[in-house]
């Protein structure tokens, strides 16, 4: 839920990084954290297991600066990717404004990508959201690995509605900001429709 505070002149939005386990969601957030100047970011919170797998979520608040006198706060969340954490995953979608789907480009992860996409659609529906209407971008991650499918093939399989698609190597920051910008843009454009 976008929270617009007309008094304090603030816009607050929630972006969720979704996708199969180990696809690179947390890595996206870490990169954004790393390149944001300290005054424009809050504390990054990771609720993870001892082995650093996301247990509940990672959270990173960032300030994007001013737009027409409004401060913009974006709250970035990741969900746990493993199938058995579905209950937690669903909770993180509460009040979501936009989704970045982080797909794993490796051939052997295709089933996991599809499963996660289908799970996203279902979980959004349970919150009353429609995957086909919500601000959404597709990130094809791990483009640096050898065993990956060609981008055009992946796109054909995973793209659902003409959303922007980005090839990425999250560990090197390639395609990370591009995806975040694209989803942010969609969220801000969607605000027009409430006007």
């Amino acid at each position: 839920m976008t929270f617009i505070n007309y008094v304090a002149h603030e816009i607050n939005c929630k972006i969720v990084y979704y996708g199969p386990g180990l696809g690179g969601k947390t890595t996206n957030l870490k990169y954004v954290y790393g390149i944001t100047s300290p005054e424009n970011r809050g504390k990054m919170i990771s609720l993870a297991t001892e082995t650093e797998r996301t247990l509940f979520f990672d959270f990173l608040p960032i300030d994007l600066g001013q737009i027409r006198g409004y401060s913009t706060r974006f709250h970035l969340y990741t969900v746990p990717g493993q199938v058995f954490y579905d209950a937690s995953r669903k909770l993180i979608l509460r009040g979501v404004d936009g989704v970045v789907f982080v797909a794993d480009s490796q051939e052997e992860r295709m089933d996991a990508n599809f499963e996660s996409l289908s799970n996203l659609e279902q979980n959004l529906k349970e919150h009353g959201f429609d995957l086909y209407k919500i601000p959404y971008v597709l990130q094809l991650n791990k483009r640096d690995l050898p065993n990956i499918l060609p981008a055009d093939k992946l796109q054909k399989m995973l793209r659902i509605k003409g959303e922007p698609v980005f090839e990425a190597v999250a560990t090197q920051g390639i395609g990370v900001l591009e995806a975040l910008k694209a989803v942010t843009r969609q969220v801000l454009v969607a605000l027009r429709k409430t006007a």
Partner: protein
Amino acid sequence: MMLSALLLRKSEYQQLQAILAKTQKDLGADLVILIDRAGHEIASEGQGLTLDHTALASLAAANLAATQELARLVGETEFSIIYHQGRHRSIHISDVARKYSLVLIFEDSVSMGMVRWKVKRAATLLEEILQESRERKPTREPGVSAAPSFTDAEIDRLMRHLSPIADVEGKV
């Protein structure tokens, strides 16, 4: 989903703030903070404690969400309060109108009965104001601003903030 954007009038915001201030004062709480389900802070009161409101709001929202889901699992529908009693400080998180939560941080000397009573009262008052604001159609009423309709150029300009620090400082 964007239609759920919360549009508060200045007067309503002041009313919310006043309710939080009264609750804070009555309980001598360190901090009283109203958040939405997405984990955004709507308003807060209490200067005694400097802590990260953003982190607090996000964790409290997630905590309440998880607790309510646990409740549903065991067949409980009304399970809308979380209370953590620490050695020095306690945290009380309660549901407001199923869409918001009130988070209190106070010292352990405050009586729990009193907390429950004041929180319940505050929740009822907050609910009235928030309910009214939610039911309002954004543009229909004078004195209520609609969601801002940004131009592409404005959005482009904002997006420039989102670039590696080096690019910004390095006068590309």
